[in-house]
């Protein structure tokens, strides 16, 4: 557990299981990015646990040569909570999807974030149910025609980043499966965060929702459509960095071409702002997959971690009152003696 960290290469992190995602699935590039990143994270394989729920993404743990548990639909954050608080020495990663994390498991997700449990949550968002063959998900756009919505989906979608910020998560970020370096940098920062970290990863499902993010993540459109957030810097984007993000009086934000007149009023990204409202406004900037979309770290603040607090109460109690004594416990509510 406290053994020195071994030097490893990518192949040390690859399990002997045959990877069974559909050819061309975005999950492959995420898996490769993580397996290549792991040797750089200063951690031993045996101290790393991947926990997943149900869905295509949930097969991920089988492919990592670490400890891993593939559990039940939506419950991975709850299982990971029991694991993480019991074993603060471990690095616990939750792998989830948009249906798993935001539909059946929405309750567990928000409470794990609210408690600030020391887990890293990678939420693969492909805006569709893949494993059940193509029904709309809680992140599908309104009007989406799927097998279960032949006349179009009636529901307003969740934005995972907005949901996480609403739960006052301490670390919230977004990246996408078309940019390995960006994925790795984002996950690296999430890994380093103490407390709950949520990373939404736009992931293409080439079978049931192909091209969902093409308008923003393709190499040709990326420069103008992805707004890469950098802490402490004015938020600007575009091939010539000609666009910027500005704030309305009501706090909401919008994009515009930068001019001499407005340049000074560009929003400066502050991921460490104690109040999540600014980050939330950024998460509401985009209402479709065809508009400029922020990626990177929205929020990164420090708050006491749940497991630390829970285990701290135990240590405090033991230091104050001494270790538990069963003989005293059994007499604690009063006792009497019957003599021979």
């Amino acid at each position, binding site marked *: *557990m406290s*053994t020195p960290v071994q030097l490893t290469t990518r192949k040390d992190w690859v*399990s002997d*299981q045959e990877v069974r995602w559909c050819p061309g699935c975005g999950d492959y590039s995420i898996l490769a990015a993580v397996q290549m990143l792991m040797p750089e994270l200063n951690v031993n*394989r*045996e101290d*790393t*646990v991947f*926990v*997943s729920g*149900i869905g295509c993404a949930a097969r991920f*743990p*089988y492919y*990592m*040569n*670490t*400890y*891993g*548990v*593939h*559990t*039940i639909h939506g*419950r991975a954050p*709850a*299982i*990971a*909570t*029991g*694991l*993480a*608080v*019991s*074993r603060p*020495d*471990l690095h616990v990663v939750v792998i989830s999807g948009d249906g798993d994390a935001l539909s059946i498991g929405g*309750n*567990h997700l928000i*409470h794990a974030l609210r408690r600030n449990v020391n887990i890293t949550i990678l939420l693969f968002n492909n805006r569709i149910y893949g494993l059940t063959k193509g029904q709309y998900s809680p992140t599908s756009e309104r009007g989406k025609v799927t097998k279960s919505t032949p006349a179009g989906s009636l529901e307003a979608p969740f934005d995972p980043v907005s949901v996480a910020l609403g739960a006052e998560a301490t670390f919230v970020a977004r990246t996408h499966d078309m940019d390995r370096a960006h994925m790795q940098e984002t996950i690296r920062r999430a890994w380093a965060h103490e407390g709950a970290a949520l990373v939404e990863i736009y992931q293409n499902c080439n079978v049931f929702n192909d091209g969902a993010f093409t308008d923003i993540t393709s190499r040709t459109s990326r420069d103008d459509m992805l707004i890469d957030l950098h802490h402490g810097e004015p938020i600007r984007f575009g091939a010539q960095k000609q666009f910027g993000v500005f704030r309305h009086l009501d706090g909401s934000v919008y994009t515009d071409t930068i001019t001499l007149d407005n340049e000074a009023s560009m929003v400066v990204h502050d991921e460490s702002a104690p109040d999540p409202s600014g980050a939330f406004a950024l998460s509401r900037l985009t209402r479709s997959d065809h508009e400029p979309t922020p990626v990177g770290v929205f929020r990164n603040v420090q708050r006491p971690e749940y497991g630390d607090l*829970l*285990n701290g*109460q*135990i240590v405090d*109690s*033991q230091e104050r*009152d*001494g*270790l*538990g004594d*069963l*003989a005293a*416990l*059994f*007499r604690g*509510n*009063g*006792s*009497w*003696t*019957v*003599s021979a």
Partner: protein
Amino acid sequence: MTQPPSPLSSVVLRFAGDSGDGMQLTGERFTTESAVFGNDLATLPDFPAEIRAPAGTLGGVSAFQVQISDHDITSAGDTPDVLIAMNPAGLRANVAQLERGATIIVNVDAFDERALAKAGYLENPLADGSLSAFSVFEVPMTSLTTAASEEVGVKPRDAERSKNFFALGLVCWLYSRPIENITAWIDKRFAKNDLVRQANYRAFRAGYDFGETSEAFAVRYEIAPAPFAPGEYANITGNTALAWGLVAIAQRSNLPLFLGSYPITPASDILHELSKHKRFGVRTFQAEDEIAAAASAIGAAYAGSLAVTTTSGPGLDLKSEAIGLAVALELPMIIVDVQRGGPSTGLPTKVEQTDLLHALYGRHGESPVPVLAPATPGDCFDTAIEAARIAVKYRTPVIVLSDAYLANGTEPWPIPDPLSIDPIDPDFASGPNATDAEGNPAFWPYLRNPETLARPWAVPGVAGLEHRIGGLEKADKTGAVAYDGKNHEVMTHLRADKVAGVVADIPDVVVDDPSGAARLLVVTWGGTYGPVAAGVRRARARSVNVAHVHLRHLNPLPANLGEILSSYSTVISPELNLGQLASVLRSRYLVDVKTVSKVQGAPFRAAEIDAAIEEYR
């Protein structure tokens, strides 16, 4: 009055009043004093689901029944010998249970027109002769209480709230209880508010002195201590005993105890109790829902903890999927279901035994789990320990079926020597257990112990044991994901055989058949043990030969049970359901087990069992 107290062998008291009147506190205190005095006893708290139901109504009546005796007893008694009614509703809700000749002590101050109407009385029962079969004592408890505490400056409205202490004092006098412990307890309990402390103390004294001086009561009684084996005892509820059993076995085994739970009546007190024991390293996690509570326990089990989740019926529904996962993962875990009346929200504070079939079969797929049920409040301690032993040894979730009667009821409990509790060896996997195709050491998470069929418990943090498990079917031995039908059949049988094999650790049941000549067998399980045993004794007192066998193990069933069942000409199964155990026994042993059913949210009465024995003998 200096007349010596008359000896009594036992008495059943029932305190009844509004749910805000402090009836539970009063009953518990009287019980504790009787326990310390050395009586055997059993209690039956009976309270509404609402925290403060409309005052003065039948629905708001909270009652506490206790039987104390100078000999070994097994239940809180059928019908009260003495009813202490703090208001008309308390009287009306309980008077039908009384037998001719019973004593009723009423707080006469509470019998005004408004209160009578609220309780649904058209006439005052104290005046209309309807209570002529009983000895009725009308005591102005409210006014005497107010008078006693006004001297210390308590406002009359507040003073009135101490009237339960007046009742306690009176009953303590009537049954010759020593009062030093109670007064010391009052001092301690209300130390933070001196005015309340004084008011309660004065009310208690006023009640005691009223008995002594008023001459209203011609006789005072005494119940001698019961013959207990020498040793130290504590009065304990089932929920406390269960919590302490978990703490004890975790501590003795050097395993961290983890509880994932969501508040639910009547199981919450286990969460409350375990939350106090941080000194023992107990981690308690109040989850966002029942599902997360069970799921967090699975995570903790995977981490190497003794993992527990506690709930009641509706929560067991929600935990079913997680229990199924624990069956597939083959991880040790304890699920405690404190049964209450169902379906749905049902009767949240009342007893029932209606979750047996759910515990045995309530999961999709072939999903066997061991099931245990404690017999008495004190037995909850031993059952928790046994559940932990089975869970860890066989790497399986184990369900413990307690119930609302055991959870809140108490009995004297012989305090065990902690060192007498054998530790569990978790036998964590420490190194590779196989060789892969290339001849390298490998770890196969589903390579089983040939004797127990248990798989290794390999907790994260050990290099070389990295492995993946999950809800998908696993290949025998290697644990790789496997969809092959033949393998699934092998695994399904292995899981079933493993749980069936727990029978090796289960003692044969012993039939209680003192005459040796009984042709009728009464079979019970779980919390009905005490009340049914009392009924069986009653039948025997009438010279009826009847045998009794009690089951603590519901899955697997004890090895000798089939032989026992078939050796009696008639078998009856009294259950607080519509015949769940009977259905299990019939299908397993092809024995024509008759059901004696009761689903009234209350335990059996000895008289009901006696009548059933009479019917079937």
